[in-house]
């Protein structure tokens, strides 16, 4: 019972953070709302029994990626953003997309094509996750890591200037 209440509370915090992210006009407030979303998502995972995923969610997303976001915002010294009336494309595709999404979620929640699991029953121990990652899904895992490596190399190539004098000295 307590867990259900906690689950609902943190679910509400998560949604509120997401809405706040859109409503805030300053980038740093937006980034911090996203941190709140990540944190409450981690708590949801924990309540569902996926403790390893919860810890990784905090360490990787809230603790590393969002710190980098905040870092970049601080570095660029980004100011308050201007309000626009929104784009016509967003109106054209966004509203039907959102409707479709809500219908889909409603369909799933009403029990069509989805199994439900009691709170805390999902396997989430580090050993289970490790077995899945390094045994059952080893090939996809390795392929993903190569994909990430390619992305890093791409970033390095884009950041370096091989044509300029400075770039020649560095490379």
């Amino acid at each position: 019972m307590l867990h259900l209440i906690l689950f609902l509370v943190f679910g509400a915090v998560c949604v509120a953070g997401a809405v706040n992210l859109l409503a805030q006009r300053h980038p740093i407030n937006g980034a911090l709302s996203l941190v709140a979303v990540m944190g409450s998502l981690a708590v949801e995972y924990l309540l569902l029994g996926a403790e390893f995923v919860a810890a990784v969610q905090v360490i990787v997303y809230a603790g590393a990626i969002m710190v980098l976001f905040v870092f970049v915002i601080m570095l660029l010294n980004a100011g308050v953003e201007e309000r626009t009336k929104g784009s016509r494309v967003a109106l054209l595709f966004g509203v039907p997309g959102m409707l479709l999404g809500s219908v889909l979620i409603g369909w799933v929640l009403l029990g069509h094509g989805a199994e439900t699991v009691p709170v805390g029953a999902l396997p989430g121990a580090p050993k289970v996750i490790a077995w899945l990652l390094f045994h059952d899904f080893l090939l996809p895992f390795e392929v993903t890591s190569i994909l990430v490596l390619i992305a890093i190399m791409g970033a390095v190539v884009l950041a370096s200037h091989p044509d300029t004098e400075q770039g020649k000295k560095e490379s």
Partner: protein
Amino acid sequence: MPALLRNTLFRNQALNITAFIIVSVIKTVLSLFVLLTAVAYTVWLERKVVGHMQNRWGPTRVGPFGLLQPLADGVKFLFKEDLTPPHVYKPLYIAAPMIAVVFALTSIAVVPFGNWIKIGTLHIPLQITDVNIGLLIILGVTSLGVYGVALAGWSSNSKYSLLGGLRASAQMISYEISLGLSLVGVLMLAGSLSLRDIVDAQRGVFWGFIPRWNIFYGGQFIAFFIYLMSAYAETNRIPFDLPEAETELVAGYHTEYSAMKFAMFFMAEYANMITVAAVASLLFLGGWHGPVFGPPILRALLPVFWFVLRIFGFLFVYIWVRGTLPRFRYDQLMAFGWKFLLPLAIANLLITALVVAIRS
């Protein structure tokens, strides 16, 4: 049931929910009290030890050996005028020290500081809560602590603070990778993420007399070295205290803070030092293992004493290093982290994995 509760309850089946809550509250309050007192007296210790290293006395006026100095400092911080400069971004300026201190104090929740004790039918572990991913929780909580520093720097709206905040976040992200990787070897040797299991895996001796601590056994002294260096950088201490380098940045991210808000950053730094020392003792130095003898009460308390002794030793080395080494330059700091510590940590990880795989 969530992992947090399930774990603690299963290991004390004699406890019912009420007793569990009462014991938990007592443990929480006690740990917090001890931690805050330890923070205050670490400051005293630092001033005293550095003082003696520099051929002066350190605090001597308040109480015998200046022992009441932390109390006097606390009173001073409370009664000082709490200035808020007009150019700051107020919500985050106020929240930043709170974020720093809250995350610094939270990680004590999963640190075990001794074995079990028995009171009547109650079987109480000396730990606020035993989570089976304890180490990950500590890593997660400490990685969130960087927000306090970064936001303090940004919201102060002054160039020194901003530079200090930027340096702190860059440094903490960089060294967190080496720090995390240095711990993986220990995890592989213990086969668990629970701090209690990791300590239990270090029980006993090998070759007749050497304790089976991870720093000796399994060749984790390299990992210990990496951990030590990264821990100094993570807690922004000399020789890696670039975020608050007085010669360049006045006081770095807390330049614009005064009174209790400044004290909160100070508390966060020292609480982080204690957490880092506790993790080092648990993972590399055998936790609370040590000679245990005498009547039952002594048997229950000696492990705690050994554990505290290790933390004290680690803090002393911290202060010793501060009294000895000069500050690095910023590019040296980054080069050391990325080009030396990180490859070393990966090499250590590979070799440890190989050894573990061959042995099993």
